[in-house]
């Protein structure tokens, strides 16, 4: 189902529509088909105007079995198009999904345009001459369904047929069968009089340029590799597989011709530690994981803070605590990112706001880490990581440039001081092994100022703790003014962070169209916070902070600015729907 959804998205992209997707699948690799737990779904929202979210209520739902119908029917808008594979509504499947009788026959589906199609039967019939085994023929039914949808939306078949030809190049029988199923579905849509309407959506008006479809994980991997090309330093990734972050490891592993070193470590701790070692040795070092992995890396991150080495840590957040909801999205690791270490251990924290933004935030994380010589933790989430959007490919001139300066042997004159700081950034020099005359020792024990020697001196400890904190605070000078969506002052300001950007934008714009006095800002720098945030909040009567957690940013804003920020909090493993934001705005302004 994920594959079918991706193909529809690609076709949509090439056709020039804007879109946003929400893949939703079980954590189990092969959860039993037909059960409620085994439902895998893929939601795509597209249109001829700017799309911010995967859509609140789909216009069309395709349910390939009773379980899918049960889980997702309530998502469909009133009078929406419901396409079902009637062949899958067998007694066994109905009972697995908990239906007492067949909803296609008992009249319980009301208020939708139901199209019950024998998808399996027609797929098998179309493939009766195929040399494939029956089981493999049946698998082609998803392409049949895709064919119906492509017809419904007047989409060309070529994007998918070309993809099938490449994907199954070595299995010509599969190529033929899948294409036949696809075309049969398409022709069914065309010839049947079942559908009263079919949708025609014109290409979206967008900024001129070259576009591609990109997920957050793909964009992030490319941003990290780009940082390596920009600076001329090799990229090192130390990582341990974890959902939903593993795709960053997979992507970077294919960039060997960029001299990207990927190291699949024995555990999360080794992923972080190997990256710290690589940073010590002069690489742009990154470790990628999700919440539970960050918990394991915590001690190593303290070491990175103490040794003041540049390191990028990526947390693709998922539902927690513990194993939680591995394949679902959440924003519940903000507190962990800000505070989840022992001792006074300040950490620069960033958050990406859209799949394409992950590219730029990957670069930004390395820019700050190397300029200030400190670890930088970048938060994304499962929704950004797997969700896709059309992304305008930046021109070379639009890609940020920055330099990384390594300490040179001349620094040794008069004795090398590995903890002597740049007054503007408080960064210490990055002196890498292999550089003559700069031999020095670092470690987790408290450092004496300047020399970096071990020091147990009480006054020195306090001075160093305050200096490490001051250094992170200095990063505030890197943060551009916040973009305000809407008026610069008014009744309500919606403050968001991270992957909720799209939903908040859509919800706020709808409220603005209704004439409500509401604006929004979106925070990408969470520590330090943007310098103008407090002043902007002061221009509004009320503050709303929508978050996919119990209010972690809200508490931070209340503590930092003494503002009466209100929360909209959802912890369902799913992104906000724009209408949820809208309803909360209306409630607060009502």
């Amino acid at each position, binding site marked *: 189902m994920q594959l079918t959804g991706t193909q529809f998205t690609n076709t949509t*992209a*090439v056709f*020039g529509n804007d879109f946003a997707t929400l893949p939703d699948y079980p954590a189990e690799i092969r959860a039993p088909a037909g059960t409620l737990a085994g439902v895998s779904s893929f939601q795509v929202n597209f249109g001829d105007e700017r799309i911010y979210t995967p859509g609140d209520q789909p216009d069309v739902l395709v349910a390939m079995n009773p379980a899918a119908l049960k889980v997702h029917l309530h998502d469909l808008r009133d009078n929406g198009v419901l396409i079902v594979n009637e062949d899958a509504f067998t007694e066994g499947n109905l009972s697995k999904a908990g239906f007492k009788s067949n909803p296609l026959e008992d009249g319980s589906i009301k208020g939708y345009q139901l199209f019950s199609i024998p998808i399996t039967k027609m797929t098998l019939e179309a493939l009766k001459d195929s040399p494939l085994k029956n089981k493999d023929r049946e698998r082609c039914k998803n392409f049949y369904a895709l064919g119906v949808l492509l017809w419904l939306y007047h989409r060309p078949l070529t*994007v998918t047929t070309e993809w099938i030809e490449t994907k199954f190049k070595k299995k010509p029988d599969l190529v033929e069968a899948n294409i036949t199923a696809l075309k049969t579905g398409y022709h069914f849509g065309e010839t049947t009089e079942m559908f009263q309407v079919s949708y025609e959506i014109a290409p979206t008006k*967008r*900024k*001129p*340029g*070259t*576009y*591609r*479809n*990109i997920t957050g994980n793909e964009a992030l991997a*490319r941003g990290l*590799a*780009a940082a390596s*090309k*920009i600076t001329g330093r*090799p990229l*090192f990734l*130390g990582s341990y597989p974890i959902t939903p972050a593993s795709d960053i490891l997979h992507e970077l592993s294919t*960039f*060997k*011709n*960029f001299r990207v*070193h990927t*190291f699949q*470590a*024995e555990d999360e*701790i*080794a992923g972080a*530690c*190997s*990256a*710290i*070692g*690589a*940073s*010590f*040795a*002069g*690489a742009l*070092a990154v470790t990628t994981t999700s919440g539970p992995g960050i918990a394991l890396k915590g001690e*190593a991150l*303290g*070491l990175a803070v103490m040794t003041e080495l540049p390191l990028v840590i990526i947390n693709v957040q998922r539902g927690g605590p513990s194993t939680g909801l591995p394949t679902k999205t959440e924003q519940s690791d903000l507190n962990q990112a800000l505070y989840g270490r022992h001792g006074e251990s300040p950490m620069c924290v960033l958050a990406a706001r859209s799949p394409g933004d992950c590219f730029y935030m990957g670069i930004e994380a390395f820019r700050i880490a190397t300029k200030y010589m400190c670890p930088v933790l970048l938060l994304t989430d499962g929704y950004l990581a797997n969700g896709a959007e059309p992304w305008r490919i*930046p021109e070379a001139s639009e890609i940020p440039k920055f330099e990384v300066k390594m300490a040179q042997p001349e620094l040794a004159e008069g004795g090398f001081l590995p903890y002597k700081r740049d007054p503007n950034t408080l960064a210490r020099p990055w002196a*890498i*092994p*292999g*550089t*003559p005359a*700069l*031999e*020095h*020792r*670092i*470690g*987790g024990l408290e450092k004496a100022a300047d020399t970096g020697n*071990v020091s147990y001196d009480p006054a020195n400890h306090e001075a160093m703790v305050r200096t490490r904190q001051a250094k992170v605070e200095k990063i505030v000078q890197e943060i551009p003014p916040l973009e305000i969506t809407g008026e610069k002052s008014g009744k309500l300001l919606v403050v968001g962070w991270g992957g909720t950007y799209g939903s908040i934008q859509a919800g706020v714009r709808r409220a603005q169209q209704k004439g409500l006095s509401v604006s929004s800002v979106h925070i990408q720098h969470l520590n330090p916070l943007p310098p103008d945030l407090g002043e902007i909040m002061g221009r509004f009567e009320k503050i709303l902070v929508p978050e996919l957690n119990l209010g972690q940013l809200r508490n931070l804003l209340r503590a930092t600015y003494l503002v009466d920020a209100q929360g909209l909090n959802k912890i369902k493993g799913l992104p906000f729907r724009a209408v949820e934001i809208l309803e909360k705005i209306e409630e607060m302004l009502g």
Partner: protein
Amino acid sequence: MSEEAVKLDRKDFVSDQDVRWCPGCGDYSILAQVQKVLPELGIARENFAFISGIGCSSRFPYYMNTYGFHTIHGRAPALASGVKIANPNLQVWVITGDGDGLSIGGNHLIHALRRNMDLKILLFNNEIYGLTKGQYSPTSEMGKKTKSTPMGSVDYPIQPVPLALASEATFVARTVDTNPKHLAEMLRRAADHKGSAIIEIYQNCVIFNDGAFKDVTDRSVRDDMSLILEDGKPMIFGKDSDKGIRIRGTKLEVVQLGDGVSESDLLVHNESDPDPALSMLLSRMHAPEYPVPLGVIRAIRRPAYHEMLLDQEEEAVQKKGVGEIRDLLMDSETWTVQ
């Protein structure tokens, strides 16, 4: 590494920091031998990196005037792996102890070894936790009475050398802090090895476990209780070189030379035998039934991790050319908006 011959001496490797180990600690001897051997290797000083974990032994990098990193408990092999991959020109040494390397860091140790990561790992084994003041360690003998085991420990100890062999280490040796000449020779051998090298060093903790190895290392007994392994030579030991090791079936036995047993009946040490079976048998010889083998127990050549990684990168560059930012962005279907 530098092409020019580098002329350095011991003093070049002594840092300006005061050494803070207890007087009489075995660590002093190891530090002295490392500082003696490094200048002989012809490697520029800036190309050495010493990485340690936590514990008494892990203070080692502070005393070496090289690049050094005193990391966190147990993680030195993981951190050192990152150093080596990021800069393969460096000679990377890992300093660890029995608690650091075999307890909290056991996982990292076995994986660094099996990957044939080109690290020189010195495992200071004193069979006790020193820095935390005297709890039993994973190598302490069963029944050991310590602060945390007042009635004696009920843990079976782990044996570093069999563990290293089982982890596919390509160089495994054992030596003692009280035999500087042998210790120096093992350090040289490890330095020359390309791949994962581990040396178990019996190291005396004068405060919490004094004399732990005296049954093997004391001047009065050491010739009879240790077997110095030499590649290609029969396994002979004893004050009068009159005892040897023979194999019977799958068991090793100690034999007295003479009385119908001659040198030709003895096992001949073959450190580069691709089959690790004999190394494993040797590694399980313990006092008092057997003399304890010292020396290079296994040394074989296999491609090291960084060599294979760099080969793959080179192959990718040959096939696809050096990647540029444009390639990162354009590697998918695209469409143009006018």
